[in-house]
């Protein structure tokens, strides 16, 4: 009986952890963009196939946009699905930029999905994601 209970606890734990991470991610995304409709595509993510060092993962984001006063990207939001907290960064862009492109370095604690949302001045939200594999986890916890 005790053995069975232990097994159940071990089985249950990862699922609970995954559910918590998904909740935190969907909450963070909802707080960021509200209930605006989201369409996939229009964003190119440049990431390594395998991040050797999760503490310094290069990330390049290029969003398709004319970057004119009328039609430009206003914000790019980056989330990581399995970090202890999902928020990575928000970039605020203006039409003074030549293109909607940002390069940075991020932390990933383990293998997970990276999600990028881009908001346009016309009220649209674009989404792209990438499955990330991490060698040594970033120093998050």
């Amino acid at each position: 009986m005790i053995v069975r209970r232990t097994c159940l606890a071990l089985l249950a734990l990862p699922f609970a952890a995954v559910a918590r991470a998904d909740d935190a991610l969907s909450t963070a995304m909802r707080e960021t963009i509200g209930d605006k409709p989201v369409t996939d595509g229009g964003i190119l993510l440049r990431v390594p196939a395998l991040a050797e060092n999760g503490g310094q993962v290069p990330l390049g984001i290029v969003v398709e946009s004319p970057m004119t006063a009328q039609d430009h990207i206003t914000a790019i939001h980056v989330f990581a699905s399995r970090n202890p907290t999902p928020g990575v960064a928000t970039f605020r862009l203006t039409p003074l930029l030549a293109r909607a492109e940002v390069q940075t370095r991020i932390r990933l604690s383990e293998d997970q999905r990276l999600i990028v949302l881009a908001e346009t001045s016309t009220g649209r939200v674009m989404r792209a994601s990438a499955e990330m594999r991490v060698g040594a986890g970033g120093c998050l916890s």
Partner: protein
Amino acid sequence: MSALPSQPRIRIPRSARAGEVIEIRTLIEHPMETGLRHEAGRALPRDMLTRLMVRLNGEALFSADFQNGTATNPYHVFFVRIEKPSHFEFIWTDEKGRQARTEARVAVA
């Protein structure tokens, strides 16, 4: 406003042709300690930058709001089309309100 001990570094050309797109690279030395990490059984105190603000000739150009997933020594690259002599101002702010600031000028050749 008190100053951050962090050292910012900018890579930007000194001049450009009118209409040319230039690349601007910024890096600031900072631990970006989330407060979630432990060392020898103790939580390391949180010490995070909250924002990088970049202005071009006094106008907002680009900003970054940092959360826990931003790496140590925050590094950012972005692109600007130079139309006239340009003055760039870069300000990083931490969660205690301390700031590090630097600036750069790009002449039109």
